[in-house]
């Protein structure tokens, strides 16, 4: 327990030491997005009854920023220590692979939540944001960040160079986030794309998260939670296997 706590604490310290970059940068980026979109698209029809388009956008952008940050946290920490070689200190320690896994993912979740909370607080100043159910919001924030934290671990274990990690980010993470209904409800899509979106786990993260704010969503939040939960367990299982057999780390 103690060893685990040290690694978790070290991971928190790591992003805290570069705090400005790791927390404020995404906050500013998201706010810029939001002001541009809301200015340009003010006239657009309401996505849901009573929900203006800019307000509709907020949960999606918020979640997107969190997902990008939780992914960035575990993946950049791991790939850096892999490439610099300092990962040996973790590999030499008696930490179990489960402890290593949880420490990295938990640190990712904390970073994602901090970024999310920061953006949310600023948004409250400028927008009149409804909040139907804090629990749903929190649950989806938690599991979404966890999901991406795990994907970050997988990507960093798999990648041997920084550009491979960037490729994973550009060809997997980015398309999945952008095609997940951040900017629209999938009902507004042609049927073909609507069906494709239904295979994207990120869609359920954002849809469920949005439900927490508006009480309206494309699919039931319980169904979304189930899908995301299954997805989370599946990627966690894969990651734990990788860590257990020492895939790329002990070969």
């Amino acid at each position, binding site marked *: 327990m103690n060893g685990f706590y040290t690694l978790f604490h070290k991971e928190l310290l790591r992003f805290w030491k570069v705090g400005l970059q790791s927390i404020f940068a995404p906050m500013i980026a998201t706010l810029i997005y939001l002001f541009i979109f809301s200015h340009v698209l003010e006239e657009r029809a309401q996505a849901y009854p009573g929900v203006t388009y800019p307000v509709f956008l907020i949960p999606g952008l918020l979640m997107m920023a969190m997902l990008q940050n939780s992914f960035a946290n575990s993946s950049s920490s791991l790939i850096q220590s892999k490439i610099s070689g300092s990962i040996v*200190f973790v590999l030499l*320690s008696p930490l179990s692979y489960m402890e290593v896994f949880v420490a990295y993912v938990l640190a990712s979740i904390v970073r994602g939540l901090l970024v999310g909370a920061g953006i949310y607080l600023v948004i409250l100043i400028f927008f009149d944001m409804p909040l139907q159910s804090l629990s749903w919001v929190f649950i989806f924030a938690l599991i979404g960040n966890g999901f991406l934290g795990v994907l970050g671990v997988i990507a960093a274990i798999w990648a041997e160079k920084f550009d491979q990690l960037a490729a994973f980010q550009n060809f997997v993470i980015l398309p999945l986030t952008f095609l997940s209904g951040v900017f629209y409800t999938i009902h507004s899509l042609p049927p073909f794309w609507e069906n494709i979106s239904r295979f994207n786990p990120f869609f359920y993260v954002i849809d469920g998260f949005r439900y927490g704010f508006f009480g309206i969503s494309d699919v039931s939040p319980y169904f979304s939670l189930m899908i995301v939960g299954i997805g989370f367990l599946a990627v966690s299982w894969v990651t734990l296997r990788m860590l257990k*057999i020492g895939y790329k780390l002990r070969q």
Partner: protein
Amino acid sequence: MIPAIEAKQVYKHYGPVSALVGIDLEIEQGEFFALLGPNGAGKTTLINVLAGLTLASNGVAKIMGHDVVRNYREARRVVGVVPQELVFDPFFSVRETLSIQSGYYGLRNNDAWIDEVLYHLGLRDKENANMRTLSGGMKRRVLVAQALVHKPPVIILDEPTAGVDVELRRSLWSFIKRLNGDGHTIVLTTHYLDEAEELCSRIAMLKKGEIVALDSTKNLINNVSGYLIRLRLSSEALPSDLQPLLESYAEGCFILRVNNYSKIEDVLAAFRIEQIRVLEMELMQPDLEDVFVKITGNTKDMESV
């Protein structure tokens, strides 16, 4: 008593390269042991297998009786490893690095021991410096300190003195000797053979992934028969009678191997007959270097480091 280190038929293949080929090795508790061999012999690979950093392709390795794969947590608790590569975490200071490392082993209030280690490694005035700002030799000292935070019964040092100045080398070894005196088992690799000869009671020599010699330092040296004589002569050529004794020729000096002192008279007699004058002569006691050269047939790799 349970051996400190036990390797049974350990193999490691990297694709077509075989880094370890059936290593069998037992090191008793309390030994001061050296793993020697030319570059690429497999020393680091063997250490990595023992530390659990690399999974063996085949075979079993145990530290203090704990299987490094099946009981990895227990095995890692009882071993401290100084890796060969200079690695460090650029986010932290020396003391932070050591506290974090202690934390991994579940040690919360380790400051007294950390202070002691810092002192013996000459790091006291650097404890608050960021790792990034340290010189290479200083970083190496921190690596040694990191391996010692949990007072492991087995300490493995992979070239701890590479790039380290004379003064630290001396203080490092006296600290390590003290730990050995307290019962810690020490295993080291080095390319400075005089270091191994002075410190280690037993030596394994590796070549191409195999143990080619394993004996006490004394026996290894005694088994190199005879002495070497280095000669500079007035002649370019060696009398033909003496050709069989020729060990090597470099920079105008002949090195001859003789089995005993009386043979030296024969050599001098041969020169007299051919009217060759001896310009310089040096009698060399056999040392570990001779053993190394003889067994691994390798001088270049050793000198390149």
